[in-house]
């Protein structure tokens, strides 16, 4: 980037425009001269031609044009007028015709004197006007102004008019104008020079003029050389011409003289300037670099130190104070370096202007040949006083002189040298850098005051050493981030911290992001953003970085923005990185321990208490108070130490108080009680309370005691119930044991088991159960075990042999049981030796009984047979006489009819009727007997069908009867078909019989559901009966009707009842005299 000096440029621009105004002013004066005919104004001297009116007008317009260059419209109008006017004049010259513009305003009386066309501008002027207009046009060319070309055109005008001016200077007429007629007035020429220069320098920061106006070393050099190139020939040629006019000099000699002088002077200037520039440039570069570097380091160090300082504040007092010192020093150094920078900038500015540095020249004899203003000021010796004096003869305020030896050395060797001079003035140590250059027959000496830089350098060196010490001591790594590009610089420590070697990684922000743990990156980025946006003074964040090994390293990164660009955008951040892994690990461990502890406390529902024994103040956690029904505040307030003692249960108070006092006195290491504590509600709660004095004073008096309190009421309850169960099992009279199924060894035995096996518990535990069993071996035990695992339990009989060798028959019930995920087999032993005896006895009794039963059965069978025989004989032998009685009665009635009167016949008929009745009675009794003895053979019987058959039989038997019958169809029952037939026959017979005297006889068979059973019924609308006799209904030989009313033996319903009962059913009747009867029965 080309550096420009905006202030200078603006100044030059204003001067350039001002030159236009100046020329316009001169032109106005000249025009006034013409107006009032003042010759001295028209021409400067009588010998010189006047400025023509047209020229003055042109200059006025062009001057205005230049001045109003920022108002292009006005400028263009002016330029058009100028071009028109001068175009006409040019036409006049070319065509030789007078167009009358020359003396339009004023008559030119002087033209004859100088021999030009009256009033007409010189050709030079016309051309210059046209060229300046062109230049104006080029400056304003659209769309892109042609600055360079405009400046060239202006330079051309300058050179042309320069020639005219030189012509006046050297009195060479030919140069004043192109020809005699166009002689230019000298003030016109000056005006043109000013105008052309103004036009040339109009935009000093554009085109090639900017080479001259730049602020760099090259621009300075060009400016100086430009001046030299411009002025030197003029001066020399003036001199030569003067010599020409003064003495007889040949032209050749003049040129030689000119060339030699020019070459010498120009070369000298070139070298002197060149050397100076070179030296200063080098030095400036070095210093600049050094300062920049120091500044960087300082800023880094500053930021780092601050970051470190914050980190280590608590723990590192020494470092803190060092840091503070460093910081202060750093501030002062910064200030100094800033001043130094300013000063050196000034210095170079002054150097550039060749005015503000100590600069003097000496001849070979060390006499002063040049003594600049700064020398005057710093030494207090004026240039006049100094000139020609021997350097060491001077008695300056400030000795800015190198030693004699150095000077002589330079003179002798012809090579430049430099030396440092330290001077003390007004108690202030000043430091100068003195450079001695060999010059033509002498020396040139520059002395630069670099006191500030020198001091700063020394301070910086010390600071840097201290800083490095601090950084190393703190094991800090440094980093340096270029914000726009993301490029970074990392120190060796940075690499070694992560296990890398310097240069292993691409040093960039991106690499850092990749190394950062993803969880920590957002925090770090936020810290960066906040800092870069100016919200925080420092970037500071904790983050994990991935080590080369892949592990994470906890680090603290801190930094500070140290550079912003002109737009205020952040450019550079520097900072430090600190390994905090040990800190972090400790922190993490502490955190985890705390979490574990909290979890443990929470899970165990532990109350925590903390008592200050000096003032008795108690601090507890919520749980501790809550346990006893208090709030935390309540609990803490109601229980001062003495109060606590009062809360103890009377049974335990003495013991606990004694234990507590012993512990407070240091006699026992812990205080631990299981005690009852009184709750807020006044109940007693079992708690475990234990604690320890954690702090004692010098005399051993307790100061602080902390402990826990735990609700153990559940535990106490469980404990009690456990004791109860153990007692229960131990005291069960049956032996019980537990074994493990894999080794079959006793794991538990109750007291009864001990007695059973004849060994105490401690002898039994661990012994195998097979040792006591005479029937079981391992193989059988295995099959039993698998049986247990299949069914969960197995019961079998075996014989145990106890330790005394006694055999005990037992019934063993084994069950599988899981306790705490361990399989066990529980054995439950029943001593069956007594039972065996009983069993034998019972068997004997049973045998006896069976024999008795067999005998009884045989007897019964015999009885049965007798009964059958009886039935048989009844059937045969009782009926036979009846038959005879009846038969012979009939025979008498038939054979002796004539011999018998009516009464005799009636008697015989009565005999016959009785015998028949007797026969029926015998049949019925036999039937009843047979039903009783019959074996029940149940089958599915279609009762509806059976009833219909019986009804049809009855209809046949008693053809004269008309009975309206209704039978519910589809009724089935499980019954003995033979017996149920007899029952139904009887019931239907009865129905027929008792409806015998009813006009519209109606008989119904059906069923209904009652109480979940099927109830069958036979209903008639016959004679019925009085329900008060119902109890007698089903008795044998019981009749409710007289024989004369309805025939019957009184055995039928008894038979029916017997059949129904045999089926497991019930029978009952409902009736009303003259309304009918209903017989209900159920079957099973």
């Amino acid at each position: 980037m080309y550096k420009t000096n905006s202030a200078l440029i603006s100044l030059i621009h204003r001067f350039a425009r001002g030159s236009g105004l100046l020329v316009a002013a001169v032109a106005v004066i000249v025009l006034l001269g013409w107006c009032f005919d003042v010759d001295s104004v028209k021409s400067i001297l009588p010998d010189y031609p006047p400025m023509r009116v047209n020229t003055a007008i042109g200059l006025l317009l062009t001057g205005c044009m230049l001045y109003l260059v920022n108002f292009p419209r006005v400028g263009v109008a002016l330029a058009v007028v100028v071009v028109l006017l001068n175009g006409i004049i040019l036409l006049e010259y070319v065509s030789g015709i007078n167009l009358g513009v020359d003396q339009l305003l004023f008559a030119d009386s002087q033209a004859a004197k100088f021999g030009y066309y009256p009033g007409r501008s010189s050709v030079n002027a016309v051309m210059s006007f046209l060229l300046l207009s062109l230049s104006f046009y080029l400056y304003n060319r659209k769309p892109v102004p042609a600055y360079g070309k405009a400046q060239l055109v202006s330079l051309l005008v300058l050179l042309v008019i320069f020639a005219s001016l030189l012509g006046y200077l050297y009195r060479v007429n030919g140069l004043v104008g192109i020809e005699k007629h166009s002689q230019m007035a000298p003030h016109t020429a000056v005006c043109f020079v000013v105008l052309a220069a103004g036009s040339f320098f109009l935009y000093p920061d554009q085109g090639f003029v900017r080479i001259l106006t730049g602020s760099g070393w090259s621009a300075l050099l060009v400016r100086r050389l430009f001046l030299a190139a411009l002025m030197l020939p003029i001066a020399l040629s003036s001199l030569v011409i003067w010599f020409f006019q003064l003495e007889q000099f040949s032209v050749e000699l003049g040129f030689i003289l000119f060339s030699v002088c020019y070459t010498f002077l120009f070369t000298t200037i070139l070298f002197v300037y060149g050397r100076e520039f070179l030296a200063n440039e080098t030095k400036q570069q070095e210093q600049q670099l050094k300062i920049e570097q120091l500044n960087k380091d300082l800023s880094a160090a500053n930021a780092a130190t601050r970051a470190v300082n914050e980190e280590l504040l608590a723990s590192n007092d020494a470092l803190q104070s060092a840091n503070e010192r460093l910081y202060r020093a750093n501030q002062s150094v910064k200030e100094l370096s800033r001043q130094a920078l300013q000063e050196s900038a000034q210095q170079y500015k002054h150097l550039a202007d060749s005015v503000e540095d100590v600069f003097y020249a000496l001849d070979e004899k060390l006499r002063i040949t040049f003594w600049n203003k700064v020398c005057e000021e710093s030494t207090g010796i004026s240039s006049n006083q100094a000139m020609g004096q021997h350097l060491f003869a001077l008695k300056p305020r400030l000795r800015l002189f190198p030693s004699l030896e150095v000077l002589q050395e330079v003179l002798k060797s012809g090579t430049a040298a430099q030396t440092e001079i330290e001077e003390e003035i007004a108690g202030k140590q000043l430091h100068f850098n003195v450079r001695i250059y060999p010059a033509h027959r002498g020396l040139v000496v520059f002395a630069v005051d670099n006191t500030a830089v020198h001091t700063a350098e020394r301070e910086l060196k010390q600071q840097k050493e201290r800083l490095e010490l601090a950084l190393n001591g703190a094991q800090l790594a440094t980093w340096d981030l270029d914000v726009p590009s993301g490029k970074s610089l990392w120190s060796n420590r940075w690499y070694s911290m992560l296990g890398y070697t310097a240069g292993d990684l691409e040093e960039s922000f991106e690499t850092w992001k990749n190394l950062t743990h993803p969880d920590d990156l957002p925090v770090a980025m936020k810290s960066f953003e906040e800092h870069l946006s100016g919200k925080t003074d420092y970037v500071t964040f904790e983050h994990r970085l991935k080590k080369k090994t892949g592990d994470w390293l906890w680090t603290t990164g801190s930094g500070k923005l140290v550079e912003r660009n002109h737009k205020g955008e952040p450019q550079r951040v520097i900072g430090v990185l600190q390994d905090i892994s040990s800190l972090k690990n400790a922190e993490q461990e502490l955190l985890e321990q705390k979490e574990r502890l909290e979890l443990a406390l929470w899970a165990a529902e532990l109350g925590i208490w903390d008592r200050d024994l000096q003032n008795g103040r108690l601090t507890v956690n919520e749980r501790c108070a809550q346990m006893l029904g208090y709030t935390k505040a309540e609990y803490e307030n109601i229980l001062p130490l003495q109060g606590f003692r009062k809360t103890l249960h009377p049974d335990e108070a003495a013991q606990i108080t004694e234990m507590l006092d012993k512990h407070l006195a240091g006699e026992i290491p812990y205080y631990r009680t299981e005690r009852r504590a009184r709750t807020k509600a006044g109940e007693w709660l079992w708690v475990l309370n234990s604690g320890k004095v954690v702090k004692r004073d010098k005399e051993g008096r307790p100061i602080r005691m902390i402990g826990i309190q735990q609700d153990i009421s559940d535990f106490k309850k469980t404990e009690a119930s456990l004791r109860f169960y153990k007692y229960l099992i131990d005291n069960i009279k049956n032996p019980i044991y537990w074994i493990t199924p894999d080794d079959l060894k006793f794991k538990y035995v109750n007291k009864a088991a001990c007695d059973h096996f004849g060994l105490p518990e401690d002898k039994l535990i661990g012994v195998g159960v097979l040792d006591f069993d005479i029937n079981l071996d391992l193989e059988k035990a295995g099959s039993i075990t698998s049986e247990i695992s299949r069914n969960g339990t197995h019961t079998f009989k075996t014989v145990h042999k106890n330790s005394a060798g006694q055999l005990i028959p037992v019934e063993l019930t084994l069950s599988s049981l899981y306790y705490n995920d361990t399989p066990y087999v529980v054995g439950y032993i029943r001593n069956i030796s007594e039972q065996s005896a009983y069993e034998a006895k019972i068997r004997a009794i049973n045998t006896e009984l069976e024999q008795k039963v067999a005998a009884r059965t045989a007897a019964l069978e015999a009885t049965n047979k007798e009964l059958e025989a009886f039935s048989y004989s009844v059937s045969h032998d009782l009926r036979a006489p009846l038959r005879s009685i009846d038969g012979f009665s009939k025979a008498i009635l038939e054979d002796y009819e004539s011999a018998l009167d009516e009464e005799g016949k009636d008697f015989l008929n009565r005999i016959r009727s009785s015998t028949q009745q007797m026969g029926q009675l015998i049949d019925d009794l036999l039937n009843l007997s047979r039903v009783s003895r019959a074996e029940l053979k149940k089958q599915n019987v279609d009762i509806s069908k059976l009833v219909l058959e019986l009804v049809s039989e009855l209809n046949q038997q008693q053809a004269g009867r008309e009975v309206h019958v209704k039978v519910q169809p589809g009724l089935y029952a499980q019954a003995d078909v033979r017996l149920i037939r007899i029952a139904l026959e009887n019931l239907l017979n009865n129905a027929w019989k008792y409806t015998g005297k009813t006009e519209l006889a109606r008989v119904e068979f059906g069923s209904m559901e009652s109480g979940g059973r099927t109830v069958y019924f036979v209903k008639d609308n016959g004679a019925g009966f009085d329900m008060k006799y119902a109890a007698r209904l089903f008795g044998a030989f019981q009749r409710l009707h007289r024989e004369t009313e309805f025939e019957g033996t009184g055995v039928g319903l008894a038979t029916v009842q017997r059949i129904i009962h045999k089926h497991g059913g019930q029978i009952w009747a409902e009736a009303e005299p003259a309304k009918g009867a209903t017989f209900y029965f159920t079957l099973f």
Partner: protein
Amino acid sequence: MILLVEDNPNDIALTLRAFKKQQANCDVVVVRDGAEALDYLFCTGDYQGRDLDKMPALVLMDLKLPKIDGLEVIRRIREHNSTRFLPVVVLTTSEENTDLLECYSLGINSYIRKPVDSDNFDQVIRNLSLYWLKFNITPKHF
């Protein structure tokens, strides 16, 4: 000819009276026990000289008989070739099922319980003589 095997004299009298009342032209031979019945049928004992070819058209037999039981008599009748198809009607007071089963399994032709009512008894005799002597056909000698 009808062979009546009956030991009760009352029953014999009443039966014979009933047959007489029928005015059926048939002889009724009465034997008083099982042995006599067999003697008659197989021409043994007291009946040694009887013509074997003259067999009764019907045997009316009580079951309760002196000497040889009625069932035994029936068995012998059915065992013997000459009497195998002889119509045998049991006329008894028993209606025990066991008796019925035994008799039918031995191959009787009918089983009639003696009614107590003498009117009924007369009717039975009338029907029997009508049926067995008039309508029923049995194979002749073989």
